[in-house]
């Protein structure tokens, strides 16, 4: 295991972009000039070893080790003698995330490289990119540029849960684009029962880079536990930008590099709508939560942070998000269908300075009641966001319960 970690204080925005190294709006010529052609198929075994040694974890939010997913599909294909299917998921249901869109717009060839390489190595008969229809013209253009006819595009819906793995599969099979009750792994039986590799499009782009430059190169960014880089969508004052940052970047350094002064920041939402709040800017933006070490690590999820400045009431903002999450329920599972709207109503009452002292306890109770009682993680993650808001903004909660607000901006939007 390598221990040559970059000191925390230097882990922020990448010095040289990796995923966007070919420049904005990179077409086939720029892509080839920057990265060169795909490695020969004689090196496929070597590429698999490099992928495994890289420690790359999925960039769609789940952070599952990508090499393990690939190996599971290989095993299932050998066992069932069925040709596997490879799907690049660029559906990006998280409303605050724009990094997959940026990648597909500006570096579609790197994503296609990763898709074609995994398809080649796995012996896949079909490969797909699932993305919102607005991105298809750019992808079709990229496929035409390289004369590639083996990749099909699938149009995903734009609602919050449409990007979940089983929702993508269901939609590709002609069903509703809603999560399914888990019945085993997609690697064993995914699209039409075939062993299926479904990975985020940014993950594919990293695979394409590791295949060319090695796992050792990949690990020169990030940490031993969170190697490589990730795209991060940063929201502040109603605008967003996307940056490529080191794995386990120091949140305060990223904010400083983006010239968002710490003094102006009240709190940061890390990990998007399924994420959590922090007032402590000394945390690391990581693949997974870890509070056993210092600095504590918060999961960046699909790579999203939202800055909340001092003029905004964080309970009002949380209430907006929880309301959105409640409305985004797939309405398939009772506890989520009934529990989240109740939770959202109680949280809204709190945000609107209702003085009912039972409200925080009710939110906690409803959170515990819906968590773990659905076919996908939506109720769990939504409850976690609500409870994170109560914990991080406990002063604001007390103020609201006594009918006052530190921020006086209940009507912000």
């Amino acid at each position: 295991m390598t221990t040559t970690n970059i000191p925390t204080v230097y882990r922020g925005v990448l010095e040289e972009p990796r995923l966007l190294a070919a420049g904005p709006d990179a077409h086939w010529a720029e892509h080839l000039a920057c990265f060169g052609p795909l490695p020969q198929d004689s090196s496929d075994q070597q590429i698999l070893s490099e992928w495994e040694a890289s420690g790359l974890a999925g960039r769609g939010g789940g952070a599952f080790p990508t090499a393990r997913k690939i190996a599971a599909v290989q095993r299932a294909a050998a066992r069932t003698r069925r040709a596997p299917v490879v799907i690049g998921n660029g559906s990006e249901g998280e409303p605050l995330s724009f990094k997959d869109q940026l990648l597909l717009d500006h570096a579609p060839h790197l994503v296609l490289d990763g898709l074609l390489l995994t398809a080649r190595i796995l012996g896949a008969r079909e490969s797909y990119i699932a993305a919102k229809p607005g991105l298809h013209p750019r992808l079709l253009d990229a496929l035409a540029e390289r004369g590639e006819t083996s990749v099909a595009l699938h149009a995903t819906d734009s609602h919050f849960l449409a990007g979940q793995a089983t929702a993508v599969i269901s939609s590709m099979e002609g069903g509703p684009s809603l999560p399914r009750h888990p019945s085993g792994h997609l690697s064993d039986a995914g699209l039409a029962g075939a062993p299926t590799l479904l990975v985020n499009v940014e993950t594919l782009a990293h695979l394409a880079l590791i295949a060319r430059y090695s796992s050792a190169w990949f690990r020169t960014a990030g940490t031993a536990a969170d190697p490589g880089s990730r795209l991060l969508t940063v929201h502040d004052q109603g605008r967003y930008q996307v940056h490529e940052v080191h794995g386990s970047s120091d949140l305060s350094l990223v904010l400083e590099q983006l010239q968002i002064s710490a003094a102006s920041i009240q709190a940061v939402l890390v990990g998007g709508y399924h994420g959590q709040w922090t007032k402590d800017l000394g945390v690391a933006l990581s693949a997974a939560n870890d509070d056993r070490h210092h600095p504590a690590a918060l999961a960046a999820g699909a790579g999203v942070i939202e800055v909340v400045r001092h003029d905004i009431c964080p309970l009002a903002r949380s209430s907006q998000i929880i309301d959105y999450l409640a409305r985004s329920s797939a309405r398939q599972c009772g506890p989520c269908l009934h529990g989240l709207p109740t939770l959202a109503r109680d949280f809204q009452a709190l945000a609107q300075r209702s003085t009912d002292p039972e409200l925080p306890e009710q939110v906690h109770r409803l959170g515990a009641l819906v968590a773990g009682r659905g076919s996908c993680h939506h109720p769990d993650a939504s409850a976690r966001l609500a409870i994170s808001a109560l914990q991080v903004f406990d002063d604001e909660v007390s103020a609201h319960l006594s009918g006052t607000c530190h921020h006086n901006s209940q009507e912000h939007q």
Partner: protein
Amino acid sequence: MSAELNINWTRCQGRGLCIELLAGALDSDPWGYPLAQDGRAAGNGKVHVDGDQLEAAREAVKMCPLAALSLHEDVGALDGRR
């Protein structure tokens, strides 16, 4: 001998038969859906069922009007697989 009762939440409509049949393991939540009693939740909607409740659990699986239940018996023989 124990087992895990798996609730397919996308199928369950809260008819409540399982709650009656498995009164020792399930309660009703405020909306009528089965809720694992304290200490029985086994993650992802699974409910731990003791040996003396097995027969009732099998009955609940058979009787569920939405076919939302399945029973995973002999849990002890499995390793800690997800």
